[in-house]
């Protein structure tokens, strides 16, 4: 009998210096040729689990290791990494730090060169990898000149040159914009079709991925297997409360079906749909008797009226970074009224961040181009800008300036010579707001990813800024932590703060934003409500933006039920269907 591709037996691992093990008692196996998705909460040790497959854990990253991992029957703990590397290829999250060479061609040859293969064989393997992934057009380019999606495809190709039998993908689309993500998923699709690799993947964007997956292994906080099976089995046969407790991302279509089932209408869930098209087909059948019905539309609150005062405005802003030929901004325009919730979307490199940097004065705008509460930003000292605008960076660690959470929050207040008692009061208020009271004395660097991000928001709140800019606030987080942060942001908005949020996540745009601005090629070709944006087929295609699943579902339903409203969130679709079904009962 041939051994399975991967066999994990009662694996336990504690990182050196950590109090708790990050994996305790993981047991599962993966058959040859399978495509398996590992699904579990943030920090549950999925990445570490992946690193045990080629022996980096525990051979290079040491710690307390128990149990065993076998790769095609070879014990991963004791087989040299350099040998396992030929059987297990790894693609990591951060496209920047996984390249070894500077030019695409060198990167592709790097791995087989390490195997000391004859030149002819290396050239053959590199050629196969280029053809397999379709990256001929990238040859000769410096790695730094590639887009995020191109980088990840190069990373995959360069690993394929080792001719591994197993590929492990560790959240490879997390840093990518929609264009890049689509590119990588297309590559995954090709790999799956050829069926000669065993693929294990950790991924947050389940909506688009789920139809590729043979099997999901659902893990809990300590990487113990909760259940395992086909996506349909895992999503529809697991107790929904367990799925929620784990805080994992599940496809919106599944979410809708589960909510309907819990409300007493199992019709959709009975068909176990995963994709929008499947759900649409079932729903059209279920709702066909109501085709002519007058559906209640959901009125989403629009942006605050023209009468509201301006929080920020950008007029015909152009900007080029020194030493770069291509301008970062050509003609950018932005209007943010007080109390608005604006989403800024667009591919990486389109100029979103550059635009935001002008609003906070990191880049000084030229006179007459950018205004904060009516005052020309070019005339404001950084200090005054910081009093009015809070900016939460994508990586919250970049903003940390002290050694404990209390000081971190008190820092800006102390700089402003606020009196001691007031500082204490305001810090405690802020901590309460972001639910971080329990880590008051901790070093900010040891907080979890979600906590760090909430701390980042809090440090921007204590000073009392009214305008808050968030750069990809939910990036790389599981559902629970992302939801928690968005609830916080939503609460701030309801309390009257003005929010500007840069994001790639159309679900967030649909659910929270009142207005969207698309940044594309240094210009701002669109400004309007999320719904209006999702109707712009040409613009969406050009910018590779994909409307959220529920919007697409509504559109599909409208083909057969013309009166069906255009809805964008699980909640609204759920209520519209519930209303009909309740009426029947």
């Amino acid at each position, binding site marked *: 009998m041939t051994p399975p591709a991967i066999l994990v037996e009662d694996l336990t691992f504690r990182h050196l210096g950590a109090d708790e093990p990050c994996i305790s008692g993981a047991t599962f196996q993966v058959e040859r040729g399978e495509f398996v998705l590992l699904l579990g909460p943030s920090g549950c040790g999925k990445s570490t689990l992946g*690193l045990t497959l*080629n022996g*980096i854990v525990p051979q*290079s*990253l040491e710690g307390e290791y128990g149990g065993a991992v076998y790769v095609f029957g070879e014990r991963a703990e004791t087989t*040299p*990494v*350099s*040998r396992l*590397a*030929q059987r*297990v*290829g*790894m693609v*990591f999250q*951060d496209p*920047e*730090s*996984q*390249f*070894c060479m*500077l030019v695409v061609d*060198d990167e592709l040859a*790097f*791995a*087989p*060169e*390490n*195997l*000391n*293969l*004859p*030149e002819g064989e*290396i*050239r053959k393997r590199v050629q196969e990898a280029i053809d397999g992934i379709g990256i001929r057009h990238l040859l000769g380019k410096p790695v*730094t000149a590639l887009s995020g999606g191109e980088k990840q495809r190069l990373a995959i190709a*360069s*690993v394929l040159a*080792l001719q591994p039998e197993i590929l492990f993908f560790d959240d490879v689309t997390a840093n990518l914009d929609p264009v890049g993500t689509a590119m990588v998923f297309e590559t995954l699709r090709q790999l799956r079709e050829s069926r000669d690799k065993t693929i294990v993947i950790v991924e947050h964007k389940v909506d688009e991925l789920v139809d590729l997956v043979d099997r999901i292994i659902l893990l809990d906080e300590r990487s113990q297997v909760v259940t395992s099976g086909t996506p349909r089995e895992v999503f529809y046969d697991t107790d929904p409360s367990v799925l929620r407790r784990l805080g994992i991302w599940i496809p919106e279509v599944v979410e809708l079906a589960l909510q309907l089932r819990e409300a007493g209408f199992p019709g959709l869930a009975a068909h176990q749909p995963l994709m929008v098209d499947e759900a649409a087909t079932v729903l059209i059948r279920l709702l066909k008797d109501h085709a002519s019905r007058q559906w209640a539309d959901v009125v989403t609150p629009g942006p605050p009226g023209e009468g509201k005062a301006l929080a920020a405005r950008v007029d015909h802003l152009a900007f080029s970074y020194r030493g770069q030929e291509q301008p970062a901004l050509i003609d950018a325009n932005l209007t943010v009224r007080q109390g608005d919730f604006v989403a800024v979307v667009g591919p990486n490199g389109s100029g979103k961040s550059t635009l935001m*940097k002008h609003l*906070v004065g*990191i880049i000084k705008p030229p006179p007459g181009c950018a205004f904060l509460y009516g005052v020309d930003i070019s005339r404001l000292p*950084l*200090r005054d800008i*910081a009093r009015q605008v809070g*900016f939460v*960076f994508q*990586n919250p*660690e*970049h*903003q*940390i*300036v*002290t*050694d404990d959470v209390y000081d971190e929050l008190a*820092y*800006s207040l102390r*700089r402003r010579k606020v009196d001691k008692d007031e500082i204490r009061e305001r810090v405690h208020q802020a901590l309460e707001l972001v639910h971080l009271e329990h880590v008051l004395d901790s070093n900010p*660097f040891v907080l979890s990813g979600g906590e760090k991000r909430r701390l980042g928001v809090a*440090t921007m709140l204590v000073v009392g800024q009214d305008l808050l800019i968030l750069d990809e606030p939910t990036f790389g987080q599981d559902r629970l932590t992302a939801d928690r942060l968005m609830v916080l942001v939503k609460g701030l908005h309801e309390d009257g703060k003005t929010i500007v949020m840069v994001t790639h996540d159309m679900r967030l745009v649909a659910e929270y934003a009142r207005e969207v601005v698309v940044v594309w090629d240094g210009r701002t070709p669109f400004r309007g409500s999320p719904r209006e944006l999702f109707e712009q087929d040409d613009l969406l295609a050009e910018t590779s933006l994909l409307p959220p699943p529920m919007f697409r579902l509504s559109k599909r339903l409208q083909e057969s039920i013309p009166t069906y409203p255009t809805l964008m969130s699980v909640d609204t679709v759920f209520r519209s269907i519930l209303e009909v079904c309740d009426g029947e009962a």
Partner: protein
Amino acid sequence: MVKLEYVPQSTPMHEWHPLMKLLGCVVFIVLATLSYDPVPNITLFLLTLIMALVVSRLSVRLFFGALLPFTVIALGFGIAQILFHGEGTTLLAIGPLSITQEGVYFAGTLAFRMLTIISISLVFTLTTDPKDLVLSLIQQLRISYYIAFGIFFALRMVPQVESEFDIIRSAHRIRGVGERAGLLGMIEEYRRYTIPLLVSLIRKSTRAAMAMESKAFGAFPERTYLHKVYIRKKDIAIFLALVIVLSAVMWILWRVGLLRGLILTTSTHL
């Protein structure tokens, strides 16, 4: 800030074998160190400028941008020498300080010696593909590929450190770091950068190390190289030509009396 990175171009300097080029630069450095008169050092410095701007066709802005901070330091050293050299024929006396002929002479030597060394090193850095340098270390000097690649990966991190530093600096500016003026403010500012920068660099280098290992780096004592560097006759010829030109220049300077000798050839030096 000017980035000190290799810029691909095709000039004889760029295509020169890295080790021969290194040897050529060493000749410059040795001559600059051994000659203790200002004119030879000025001449050597001018020759490095010709190497940079004419032979290597480096961008004037890039090159002088990189050289500028060092020029300031060299000037500082020079002025200090002029003011405090003391002994010798006084040209001008300001209170307790006396500017002497010997002081000016020595200051000129010192400043241009520094500039020559920095300038030729910049020429080397800006015209040499780090990959070719590493490959020549491995293929010609037989240095272990672990060590040679170690150097290469460290060099590769430099631009990443720079961009990471820029991000952290803007992130901190928003928090109000760097508002305090003066030296104390600057010290405080940089102190606050260190931990985030270190954390992020350790993380990045750990990731890079994992990526290398995952690509079977170090699997065998030997590895293959698709790209090979050879020392061609041309590379040696260029080196010899350089040595001849420099010797001729030094000889002429000696004949006209502007070069008293080299530290090795004379026993009387400053």
